């Protein structure tokens, strides 16, 4: 049994490394992105093998799914503006100044040295040293939830998670600002998705996303995984043109972006005082407060990720072809 498992681990590790190399060396950029998506899914499988299902879910949904969608959209945009939309293979879409071979070899040599150092440090590190697991196990009864990762994310290290939501908010602000100057420039129409497919899958995705959020207090899942799955709803709605962003929706979108950060910070401040510090939830309300934060953060994450995919903020169309979805 152990041998079969080890064989599987070796095969999986080999595939992951081979896919990483292939995604950087294959000529066609589209193929590179597809290989990267497969690489991400196999990495998620490897993390399941390492009994890290939460991380695997997050990597599969956010790190691979949404990232892959963003990369494909950008590739489509680049092919459109460079006039290479019809070409199957477009290698140097964004050529930068050619790097001399000597510099490349020097870089590779330094990378090799860094890697060697990392590998030596990894092999020399003490095995199974004391981690935070005993501390977390000790504090679990006071956390309000039954799943350690959720307890760490939303209770013990909630400051990290708050900052993470702030980073997401900063990203969407930055993307809207970067693309503001392009609002009038024509953008490529994205390929259409059959509306029947969207109608069939949308309810299922909503159920899965909500289940992941709800289940997060006692089992793998939570706000980020659920939010990413719900963001897929937004992507499908955008791609199948069931929902077309309009300038009038900007205010609503802005409220949705800040909802997660605002609710998170608001709860943290409200529970402080009376001898408590921020994020020190009262024991009898800890579960409800964590669920409230998670629910609002999930909505925020879903809308933010969908907006990151859409890119530019919706503006009034100056001409029929001025909007990206006309």
């Amino acid at each position, binding site marked *: 049994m152990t041998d079969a498992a080890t064989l599987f*681990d070796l095969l999986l590790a080999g595939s992951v490394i081979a896919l990483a190399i292939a995604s950087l060396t294959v000529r066609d950029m589209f193929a590179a992105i597809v290989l990267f998506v497969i690489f991400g899914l196999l990495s998620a499988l*490897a993390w399941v093998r*390492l009994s890290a299902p939460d*991380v695997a879910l997050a990597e599969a949904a956010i790190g691979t799914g949404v990232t892959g969608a963003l990369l494909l959209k950008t590739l489509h945009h680049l092919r459109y503006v460079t006039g290479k939309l019809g070409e199957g293979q477009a290698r140097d879409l964004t050529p930068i100044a050619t790097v001399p071979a000597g510099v490349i070899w020097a870089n590779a040599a330094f*990378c090799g040295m860094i890697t060697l150092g*990392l590998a030596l440090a*990894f092999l020399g590190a003490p095995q199974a040293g004391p981690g935070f*697991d005993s501390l977390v*196990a000790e504090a679990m009864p006071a956390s309000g939830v039954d799943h350690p990762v959720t307890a760490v994310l939303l209770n013990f290290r909630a400051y990290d998670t708050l900052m993470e939501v702030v980073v997401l908010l900063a990203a969407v602000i930055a993307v809207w600002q970067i693309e503001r100057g392009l609002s009038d*420039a024509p953008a490529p129409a994205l390929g259409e998705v059959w509306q029947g497919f969207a109608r069939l899958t949308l309810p299922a995705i909503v159920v899965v996303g909500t289940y992941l959020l709800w289940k997060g207090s006692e089992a793998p899942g939570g706000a980020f995984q659920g939010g990413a799955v719900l963001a897929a709803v937004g992507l499908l709605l955008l791609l199948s043109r069931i929902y077309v962003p309009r300038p009038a929706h900007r205010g609503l979108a802005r409220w949705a972006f800040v909802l997660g950060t605002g609710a998170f910070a608001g709860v943290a401040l409200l529970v402080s005082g009376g001898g408590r510090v921020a994020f020190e939830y009262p024991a009898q309300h800890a579960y409800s407060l964590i669920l409230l934060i998670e629910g609002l953060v999930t909505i925020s994450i879903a809308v933010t990720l969908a907006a990151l995919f859409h890119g530019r903020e919706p503006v009034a169309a100056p001409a029929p072809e001025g909007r990206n979805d006309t």
Partner: protein
Amino acid sequence: MTPDLIYGLTGIAVFAIGLVGALCAQDRLRRVLALKLCSVGAGFVLVVAAWRTPPADPDPVPHALVITGIVVMISATAVALALIRRLQTLEAEDDDG
């Protein structure tokens, strides 16, 4: 050969591939892809650090850190891709005009 050893070395290898790619790739999109590979490699090493030899009850703190890292990485990726789109559009306009 235990899973932590196999996947730990895999993570370091993936990180190295990403590092070489980020420094040497000729295409902007591919550089972003390479940086993403680096982050997955770092995630591998952290997840391995959380693994305990009897495969039960891993350390949840590194797991939470990796989840945070994944979300921060997609934020950074989205901003980088928006910059690439903007830059490419401006360059295309320059070529036309």
